[in-house]
């Protein structure tokens, strides 16, 4: 009995050892691991990766989808350890600032110079994600390029155009009209609600974006002003937060469970026909809302700017990790993903195009008739923190903002008090880390 058991054990162990060795020894190819946000970005990369591999037979690309809620954690965990888990990583402006400040990513200038990329074809606000807006950033005064744009998007007002037509409504031009439209299309008895907003008091919440979509059009102020001084408490911001609070508590146009809402839940609410309005990343949600498999409202959705015309602009770039063993090959894939596949992935999934030339592609115009508006909004829009230096603290500042706004909306904290509290916490944080005198 002992003998047989011993033999079994030995076989199992040897088997696993062999398996491990086999996997490891298949290293004659150059492997590039790409860590991207799970969803259309990782799906898009997975879509085009095989074609890249065909063109470059000695390179193997593995795309690892990382869910948004764990993205910051996973990527920083790996990058800070130099583990080489990801050779290429995605990042938005604030994350990029963290990467660059910590020295975890490779400057791309020499690769860009060597290649035939026309950097003028990039929509500037998306390209600048990878340079931290050039000299505006104290983290990258030389304006080196660290990442190529991969996905761009603009926050727009999403509405049910079929219900608008039915009720004789037009896209709101003023905030009064907005409130009117939202309350008109709010019929809780039929499980229909006016607006899906984000409410999650969490790090990946969308509260901040919803808030600033209002605030930037109500003379609100950006979080940090001259010399990194917190200026969240301002008349414009007070108006904006009051509107937010009223939508949930006074007009009661939000679905139950809105307290849990982050990005995905807002989309689901509209896609399932539960909510009739939301503020959302236009192209990202279009991918979901127009997909008959996922959405009950495909073909019934309209996209317009918020009253006032200002919008929050966001986007993701792709960067090469310092620990990458094959930076040159990684850059090839970067280029392929950012430029060659821009229109293709945008057509297949809801990815926002980053090239001006993509916006002129007839196929793109057919699929996204509002693409000219998109480019215009993207060029004129406000990057959330672009007017202040991209601090490596931005992730914590985002938390303070999200939590603070959510408290006003859901915990009954009075609006002025909530904003002052945010300023106070931000000042504490900045002072502690030496960014504020």
């Amino acid at each position, binding site marked *: 009995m*002992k003998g047989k058991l011993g033999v079994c054990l030995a076989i199992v162990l040897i088997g696993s050892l062999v*398996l491990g060795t086999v996997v490891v020894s298949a290293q004659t190819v150059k492997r590039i*691991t790409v860590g991207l946000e799970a969803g259309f970005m990782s799906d898009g990369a997975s879509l085009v990766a095989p074609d890249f591999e065909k063109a470059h037979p000695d390179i193997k690309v593995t795309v690892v989808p990382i869910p948004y*809620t764990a993205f910051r954690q996973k990527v920083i965990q*790996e990058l800070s*350890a130099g583990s080489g*888990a990801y050779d290429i990583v995605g990042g938005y402006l604030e994350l990029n600032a963290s990467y660059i400040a910590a020295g975890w990513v490779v400057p791309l200038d020499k690769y860009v110079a060597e290649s035939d990329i026309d950097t003028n074809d990039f929509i500037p606000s998306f390209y600048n994600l990878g340079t931290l807006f050039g000299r505006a950033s104290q983290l990258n005064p030389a304006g080196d390029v660290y990442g190529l744009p991969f996905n761009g998007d603009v926050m727009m007002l999403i509405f049910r155009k079929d219900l608008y037509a039915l009720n004789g409504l037009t896209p709101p031009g003023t905030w009064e009209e907005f409130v009117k439209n939202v309350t008109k299309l709010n019929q809780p008895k039929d499980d229909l609600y006016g607006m899906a907003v984000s409410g999650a008091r969490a790090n*990946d919440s969308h509260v901040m974006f919803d808030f600033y979509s209002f605030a930037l059009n109500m003379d609100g102020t950006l979080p940090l002003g001259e010399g990194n001084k917190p200026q969240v408490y301002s008349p414009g911001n007070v108006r904006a937060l009051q509107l937010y609070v009223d939508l949930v508590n006074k007009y009661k146009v939000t679905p139950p469970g809105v307290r849990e809402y982050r990005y*995905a839940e807002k989309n689901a609410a509209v896609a399932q026909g539960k909510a009739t309005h939301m503020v959302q990343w236009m192209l990202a949600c279009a991918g979901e809302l127009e997909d008959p498999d*996922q959405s009950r409202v495909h073909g019934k959705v309209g996209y317009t700017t918020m009253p006032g015309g200002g919008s929050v602009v966001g986007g993701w770039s792709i960067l090469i990790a310092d620990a990458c063993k094959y930076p040159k090959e990684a850059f090839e894939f970067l280029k392929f993903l950012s430029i060659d596949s821009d229109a293709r992935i945008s057509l297949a999934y809801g990815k926002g195009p980053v090239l001006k030339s993509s916006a002129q592609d007839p196929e793109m115009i057919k699929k996204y008739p509002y693409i000219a508006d998109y480019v215009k909004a993207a060029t004129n829009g406000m990057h959330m923190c672009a007017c202040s230096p991209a601090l490596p603290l931005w992730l914590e500042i985002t938390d303070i903002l999200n939590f603070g706004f959510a408290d006003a909306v859901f915990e009954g904290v009075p609006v002025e008090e909530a904003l002052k509290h945010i300023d106070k916490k931000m000042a504490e944080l900045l002072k502690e880390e030496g960014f504020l005198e």
Partner: protein
Amino acid sequence: MKSAIGAPKSLRFLVMGRYLLLTILSAISVFPIIWLFLSSMKTQVDLLARPPVLFFKPTAQYYIYCLETGFFGSYFVNSLIVALFTTFFSIIIGGLGGYSLARLRFCGDKFMAFLILSFRMLPAVTLVIPMYLLARKFGLVNTKLSLIIAYVAFNLPFVTWMIRNYMDTIPVEVEEAAMTDGASRIYTLMRITLPLSLPGLFSTAIFCFLLSWNEFIFATSLTSSPKAQTFPVAVSGFIGCRGIAWSALAASTCIMLLPPLLFGIFAQRYIIRGFVPGAIK
């Protein structure tokens, strides 16, 4: 057989009551798992439907998706390799230690109490933080080796305790008899004690395997890519996706729960021995 509750069970009412209660409790126990399985066979549209559909056209597409994407192949293998190696090392180190502690009476007891308390009291968080930082230092982040080391460290006190308890049940006299006949301690250990303790070792091995398979907090902190990531971490990655891929989530969870479920059904006896403190048979 009279039970410790007393009173003859001839009253049919009591018998029916018992069966009824047990059935209800069993339903509560098993229903969520069945619901999970049903959800894994529904399409996304069916899942989101209101009212929840009870009769639907089942589809295995999500299972196929799980099996086809090379990912799940590697995650499953990672979990397996980590679990096997952890079990192997834990049993050997814990086995030798447990045996020695079983025979070394006077200091063994105190040390044993200390060990078992430390296992139960140590929060995983407290060990995860330095494990991650040290893995960083030694370049072991995102490797299976770091997980194996972490799991062995975390499980060793418990494994040692379990094995010591089994060794305790092997009477010293048996060993002494062999040694009287001239056998060395080592020989006795190999040829006599070991075979006798095999059921216990087998129990411990199963328990160790399960602990390693079910582990999450170390795995999510130490691994991030198909190279080393284990199954629970990969499955948790479905959460927070745009539109939350519920069906795929359900399907992959079913796959993940399969080994523990099988162990639970067929190896119940062995697992129970790991629960019961002390050598209650």
